């Protein structure tokens, strides 16, 4: 691209690995003074890692970062902030226990001569930003009592406090209302005139076209395109993000048995707090139904509500009977299983033995504290391990001595043993190597042959298209489309997920 000294930031060949996972392989991006650049990519393309390297949360493993022509070695957020790189985090960096004003200046409070905090100038800044951005909050209110959209605005006011040269906005607008976003953009445009540069990460194409002039697209950790938005269509962006042409649709692996079988699970107009609204789905016996959506569109909460972990209202019909699910243990008794992709938090007991990890659903549901026979448990566990092809030193070793893929197999093994009627999967193959991934998926497929139904949510579109017969697409807490048959292809799926598909957004089907 055009050289010269007007670049505020120039990143070349950035590399970042998390263990065996290559989050960033070769990511480059350069941005000029006063430029607003979009950073786009599908789920897992490395956008978040990229911006977190710039903000100092993650340390780079290779590549170069040049700020105003000088190599910058970012070792912690302090380096970034002090060199004028500010970040508004997607999951926010606010301190719940401090007030709105205190949060805006945290770490860099204005100090009076006697060493105390200059409250007046702190409040001045807070009031100014509250006014400019239309934040609905008072400076002295504790931040934990503010709602999410206003917290996002506070996060931006905080990022701007040190007068940065570069502002990175990581999907921060996702929780905001339309008018809030408009006002924010208007204000930021003024700042851009004053020399601020912005890297804007968002999944909302309207916002990207409205706000940004250029775009860098990441795919699988590699920057694949650098475009001017004025002469690129959304289809082109989607093409670069997914690497698939709109024309050449591959239909060969559309799923086999399209079952018009009896209903197994019916959900009617289910609401899950503020996360998901009016969700109605149908799952047939032995059917694999997919759930797609960008991160945080309510699909995770929906699945957890079905498993009794979050309260909900609405109707659930399982095998013709109306049921109410009170808790996860209730769900398991009624024949519903759940596998989370977040093994550490919601899956594995990492320091406990492999056998215990497989048999936990069984032991947890025993009514009477009958003595457990260690030998019998081991035998059962060993049998399941054989079926699952788990690579482990034995049934007695702790689960954390296994690879991620093998740990996930243990969790699948729990349900292999339990044989639920419906198995809910929330990104079950996240961070799992290709081999284990295929093994897990073929195993699940086998389980459906005995009549088990699967509700499969995944951030990997290709996987979803492969395994699911129909796909419900979640967008902002609603199902905006059901894709099946011819419509079940990666282009339409990607477009629907991003909310680009106008027809789908206006109403369900």
């Amino acid at each position, binding site marked *: 691209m055009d050289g010269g000294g007007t670049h505020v930031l120039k990143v070349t060949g950035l590399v970042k690995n998390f263990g065996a996972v290559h989050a960033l392989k070769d990511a480059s991006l350069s941005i000029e003074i006063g430029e607003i650049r979009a950073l786009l990519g599908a789920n897992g393309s490395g956008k978040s890692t990229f911006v977190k390297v710039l903000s100092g949360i993650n340390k780079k493993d290779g590549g170069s970062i040049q700020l105003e022509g000088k190599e910058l070695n970012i070792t912690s957020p302090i380096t970034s902030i002090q060199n004028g790189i500010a970040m508004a985090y997607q999951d926010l960096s606010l301190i*719940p226990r401090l007030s709105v004003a205190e949060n805006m200046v945290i*770490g860099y409070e204005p100090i009076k001569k006697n060493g105390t905090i200059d409250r007046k100038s702190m409040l001045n800044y807070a009031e100014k930003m509250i006014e400019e951005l239309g934040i609905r909050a008072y400076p002295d209110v504790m931040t*934990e009592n503010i709602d999410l959209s206003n917290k996002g605005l506070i996060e931006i006011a905080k990022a701007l406090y040190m007068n940065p040269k570069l502002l990175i906005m990581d999907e921060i607008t996702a929780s905001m209302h339309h008018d809030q976003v408009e006002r924010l953009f208007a204000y930021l445009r003024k700042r851009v005139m004053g020399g601020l540069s912005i890297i804007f990460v968002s999944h909302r194409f309207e916002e990207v076209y409205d706000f940004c002039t250029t775009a860098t697209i990441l795919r699988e950790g590699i920057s694949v395109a650098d475009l001017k938005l004025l002469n690129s269509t959304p289809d082109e962006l989607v093409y670069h993000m997914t690497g698939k042409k709109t024309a050449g649709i591959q239909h060969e692996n559309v799923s086999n048995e399209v079952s018009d079988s009896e209903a197994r699970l019916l959900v009617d107009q289910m609401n899950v707090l503020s996360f998901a609204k009016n969700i109605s789905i149908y799952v047939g016996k032995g059917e694999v139904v997919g759930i797609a959506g960008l991160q945080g569109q309510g699909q995770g909460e929906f699945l*957890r509500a079905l498993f009794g972990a979050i*309260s909900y209202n609405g109707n659930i019909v399982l095998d013709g009977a109306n049921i109410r699910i009170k808790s996860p243990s209730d769900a398991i008794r009624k024949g519903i299983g759940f596998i989370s992709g977040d093994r550490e938090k919601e899956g594995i007991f990492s320091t406990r033995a492999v056998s215990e990890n497989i048999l936990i659903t069984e032991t947890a549901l025993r009514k009477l504290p009958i003595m457990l026979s260690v030998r019998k448990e081991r035998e059962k566990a060993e049998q399941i391990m054989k079926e699952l092809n788990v690579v482990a030193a034995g049934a007695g070793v702790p689960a954390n001595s296994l690879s991620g893929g093998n740990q996930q197999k243990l969790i699948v093994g729990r349900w292999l043993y339990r044989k639920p009627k419906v198995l809910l999967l929330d990104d079950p193959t996240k961070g799992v190597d290709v081999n284990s991934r295929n093994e897990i998926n073929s195993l699940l497929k086998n389980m459906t042959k005995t009549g088990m139904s699967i509700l499969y949510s995944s951030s990997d579109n290709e996987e979803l298209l492969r395994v699911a017969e129909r796909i419900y697409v979640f967008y902002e807490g609603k199902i905006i489309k059901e894709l099946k048959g011819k419509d079940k292809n990666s282009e339409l799926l990607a477009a629907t997920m991003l909310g680009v598909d106008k027809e789908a957004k206006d109403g369900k089907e």
Partner: protein
Amino acid sequence: MGKNSLKHNPSWSVGISGYVLLLGAVLINILIQGFGFFRVTSFGSLLSSNLPLILAAYAQMIVMLSGGIDISIGNIMALVNAVAIVLANAYGMPIGVSWTIAVAIGTGVGLLNGLIIAYLRVPPLLVTFAMATFIKGVALVVLPKPGGTVPKVIYRTYTGTILGVPTAIWLILISTVILLLLSKFKLSKSISAIGSSERNAFASGIKVEKTKVLAYTLGGLVASFAGLSLTALTASGDVRIGGAFALQSIAAVTIGGTLGAGKWSSYVYGAISGSLFLAVVSNIVFFAFNILATNYPGMQISTYYQQLLSNFIIIFGLASAVLMDRQNHQKTGKDKSKRGIAL
């Protein structure tokens, strides 16, 4: 998701569990003891004998605000007591010098705690527990047997009055004001920040390790003063009396309410009301047993029963403080995920 509460700043509700419990305890105390409770001598002696606890609670509050815990506070007090007594009695140092050295040593223990916790990333519970055992050993080497004394003027003044007001009240006032003034400094915000969300504090450019070290050091400093007030109160050295203060200080801070979110000052008020609650409870129990003994002469009640009863009340206080905090949280709609399942 909670509505944006623009009008109310619910931070006042943080220390409220402490106030409510304290008020209840004081009322019961008046019922039992009569208005003699407010006489300068009885009120003064209640406060002077509990000043060490109040200061220990302040020390614990600072550490707990930073997201940690300090089990060694009680033994820091014991070490300070032993050093202050031995240096003055066995080595003939002036009180000023021996007490300053004692405070420096106590603060040093806090510093060491902080360094290990922040840079070696060992859990605070383990570090301070090990430290407690270690410095108890040191204190026993310094002062193997209880003994020694402090000049009369010190303990007379400590338990007496200045300008007609009990000295203990002056000391409580001074320490409380100093602690409240801390909230005007950047350090207090950094401590609150790392205790509230360490990851976000890191992302905000706060020096997390340095702040942790400072929090434990400050805790050690305040605990050292608690040790000095214990020395003035008992007018002698005894390594065994310090130990119980660690858990009592945690109880006091918890009863005052640190679990929620709130301003620095509300935590200070919470800590003092929590420790006064503990003080008044033992006062109540003491007087209740006194009444029994005077009305039924010949009745023998072991003091173990006093401890048993007052600790039972403390458990009740802790439980209700935690419950009140939880209710506050539910009101502000924070408890979104049932049973802490990650979303």
